[in-house]
């Protein structure tokens, strides 16, 4: 039972809608899927959308940090949106909440 990840590219921004549970199992998919976009198209910013996410462990933190480093190297950015209480607590304990600016969730196109 693997949650689905959805990728939406808009100009140079890649929106990644994350699944309900982010653990080691799904983190490998998030890394591979996101990196495939980074390689094949010009992405300047990744927005990770947590609005469906209720669980994340340190594997998810590793995946976020890996993408953050990669984007920083090429002068891009990583932002987050739709962050609930649980994920906020995880980001704070991992001390990465200050690295990832939070933006308003964009209106979803139906």
């Amino acid at each position, binding site marked *: *039972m*693997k949650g689905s990840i959805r990728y939406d590219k808009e100009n140079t921004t890649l929106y990644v809608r994350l699944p309900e*549970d982010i*653990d*080691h*199992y799904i983190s*490998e998919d998030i*890394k591979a899927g996101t990196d495939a976009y980074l390689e094949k198209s010009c992405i300047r910013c990744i927005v990770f959308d947590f609005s469906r996410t*209720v*669980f*994340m*462990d*340190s*594997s998810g*933190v*590793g*995946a976020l*940090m*890996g993408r953050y480093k990669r984007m920083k190297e090429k002068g891009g950015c990583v932002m987050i949106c739709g962050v609930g209480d*649980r994920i906020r*607590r*995880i980001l704070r*304990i*991992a001390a990465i909440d200050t690295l990832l600016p939070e933006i308003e969730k964009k209106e979803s196109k139906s």
Partner: protein
Amino acid sequence: MEKMSFEMESRACNEQFARVVVAVFLSRLDPTVEELDDVKTAVSEAVTNCVIHGYEEGEGIIRVEVSLEGRTATVRVIDHGVGIADVKKAMEPMYTSCPEKERSGMGFSFMEAFMDELKVESEPGKGTVVTMTKIIGGTEQ
């Protein structure tokens, strides 16, 4: 004292299974959502360690034991994998034995942050036992 245990194959897809089963068993203590999420995170970290490090993503059996005594929940996660030569070093925040895999190095730190007590016993070549306890409902009464 109430006890429960199960064994499963060391596979990434079992990480979710393990944390959900433990959470369902703990629900009889009427935990808050946050307490349950804390335990789920800690179990996920411990089982992920078995899969990635203990058995190095190969075959193996992971055993999970849960016991409840009063309001204290004890979770033990046991593998018979490669073991950890230097437990103290492995538990240092941000330390990871495989940086190329983009691990955060926060597994043990998360277990410590989300549980009340953490004990790690390991012997190279024999395996690792992680014992974690948490008092459920401790903050409300």
